[in-house]
């Protein structure tokens, strides 16, 4: 019997590695998901066959309940809600890790190496659990998305973490009084909440990636506590994945990694409160925009979170089709941190059936802006702000941006002149070549599509 579960674990580990490998290209990506599911199935069946597992009726019932909750969750959420769903799904996974750690502690009351692994597992599990719930709340806008800060916040957070680590160390060294573990767990839970409170919605891509990394690390720690190498492999892959993604996000926002690790996100942004500018802008109607686009050869669309909010991706597809039919080349330029999750824009555009070979990364498309007749900015703000290039006083100075200002005409669809999420004014709006298209992104794009046939 023993060999069977070991073989199942090896198959599971191989499938999980293969699953991430296949995800590297859209052509094989779905195979990757199948491999992942296959691996997970083997991991579960293998575990159920282990002789340590004596009663499986309850486990099967629990698996059934979990599947009955998880499946509708995945099918009923709209595509724009993918970041929230991932955060929520995450909360459940890390809660599981934390509870397993807690149960192990109460079952064997270990000290030394095993306890060290359990301490890491539970602290990461509990803090990632509440942090994910908070991230879910912010993304779903149940919790205010603006960063909430107070004086000495970092000090309070660090102090809490230090106490939790101290308690953890105490438990590793010797058996402790009964209150220590609950206090340790409570501090970890509280720390997770405090970690997310100061973070603004715009920084969520980094945070979600980072939480993913923590969840992986918690799994790997669980693997050490239970001497289970499958957990170590899957956990390590996960931790690595989350880590890389958050590093990519950091680079795209010109933040240092230490800044992110200590949860000091959003700090920079608050230093400047935007003053409503009274400088003149050129505004235009859908008719004007349609006339210019009808005569263009190349249009580059720059989507941002505003497109997701307005659900404008389907109208954008209509516009793409109409322009392509007229012989206008349409491309999409996607900034690494556009949206609320890495790659968020790609998913929404794909949902609207826009082929992925039209979506381009920042480095690839930036040289093309100078030969574009129109750059159409939809719901993006900071990622196209030229101040990032030259204004050393700007909070986003140094952040790589999309060079939309090099296009012949820049069109910006925006609700009003209110500064964007980060509260930074954007000099792009005041350029002579910039036309401001005020209105709801979805209906405005729809209007442009309607006006197009009039121009031939």
């Amino acid at each position, binding site marked *: 019997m023993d060999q069977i579960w070991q073989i199942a674990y090896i198959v599971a580990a191989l499938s999980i590695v293969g699953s991430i490998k296949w995800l590297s290209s859209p052509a094989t990506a779905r195979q990757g998901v199948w491999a992942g599911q296959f691996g997970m199935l083997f991991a579960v069946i293998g575990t159920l066959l282990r002789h340590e597992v004596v009663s499986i009726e309850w486990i099967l019932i629990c698996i059934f309940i979990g599947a009955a909750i998880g499946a509708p969750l995945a099918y009923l959420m709209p595509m724009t809600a993918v970041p929230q769903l991932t955060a929520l799904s995450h909360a459940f996974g890390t809660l599981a890790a934390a509870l397993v750690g807690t149960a192990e502690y109460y079952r064997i009351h270990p000290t030394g190496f095993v306890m060290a692994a359990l301490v890491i597992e539970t602290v990461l599990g509990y803090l990632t659990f509440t942090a994910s719930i908070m991230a879910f709340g912010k993304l779903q806008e149940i919790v205010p998305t603006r960063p909430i800060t107070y004086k000495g916040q970092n000090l309070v957070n660090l102090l809490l973490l230090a106490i939790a680590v101290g308690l953890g160390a105490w438990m590793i060294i010797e058996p402790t009084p009964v209150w220590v573990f609950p206090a340790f767990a409570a501090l970890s839970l509280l720390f997770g909440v405090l970690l997310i409170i100061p973070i603004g919605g715009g920084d969520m891509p980094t945070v979600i990636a980072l939480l993913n990394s923590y969840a992986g690390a918690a799994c790997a720690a669980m693997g050490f506590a239970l001497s289970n190498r499958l957990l170590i492999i899957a956990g390590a892959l*996960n931790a690595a994945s989350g880590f890389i993604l958050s590093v990519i996000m950091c680079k795209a926002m010109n933040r240092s990694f230490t800044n992110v690790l200590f949860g000091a996100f959003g700090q920079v942004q608050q230093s400047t409160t935007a003053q409503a500018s009274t400088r003149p802008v050129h505004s235009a109607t859908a008719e004007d925009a349609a006339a210019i686009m009808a005569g263009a050869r190349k249009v580059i669309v720059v989507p941002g979170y505003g497109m997701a909010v307005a659900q404008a991706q389907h109208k954008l597809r209509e516009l793409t089709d109409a322009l392509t039919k007229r012989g206008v080349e349409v491309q999409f330029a996607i900034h690494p941190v556009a949206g609320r999750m890495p790659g968020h824009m790609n998913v929404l555009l794909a949902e609207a059936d826009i082929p992925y070979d039209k979506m381009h990364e920042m480095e690839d498309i930036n040289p093309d802006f100078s030969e574009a007749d129109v750059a159409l900015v939809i719901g993006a703000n900071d990622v196209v702000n030229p101040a990032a290039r030259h204004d050393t006083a700007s909070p986003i100075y140094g952040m790589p941006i999309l060079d939309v200002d090099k296009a012949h005409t820049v069109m910006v669809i925006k609700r009003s002149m209110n500064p964007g999420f980060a509260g930074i004014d954007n000099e792009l709006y005041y350029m002579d070549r910039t036309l401001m298209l005020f209105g709801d992104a979805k209906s405005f794009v729809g209007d442009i599509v309607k006006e197009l046939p009039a121009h031939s």
Partner: protein
Amino acid sequence: MTTETEMSLYVLILAVPLGLQLVQRVSPLLHTPLMSLTNAISAISVVGAILVAGSGEATPFTKTLGCVAVVASTINIVSGFLITDRMLKMFRKKEK
């Protein structure tokens, strides 16, 4: 240090660079599916949850914790994989 622990450390040492390599090759186009796939994979904690819930030496307390953990991790697995697949289904190269 036991041989068990030593072996586990070797596994960790090899798995981390492997993960870094694999993920670096994923196209930014697929970063959201990557996030949700790895999110589903992180629910491998279901293995630990089953071991705790099904253990012969479990007390009612640890068994309850284990069962809740099984439910929670299954939610994570099922929703994680399904949403990833739902997203990937939409990625098409050319229009029909």
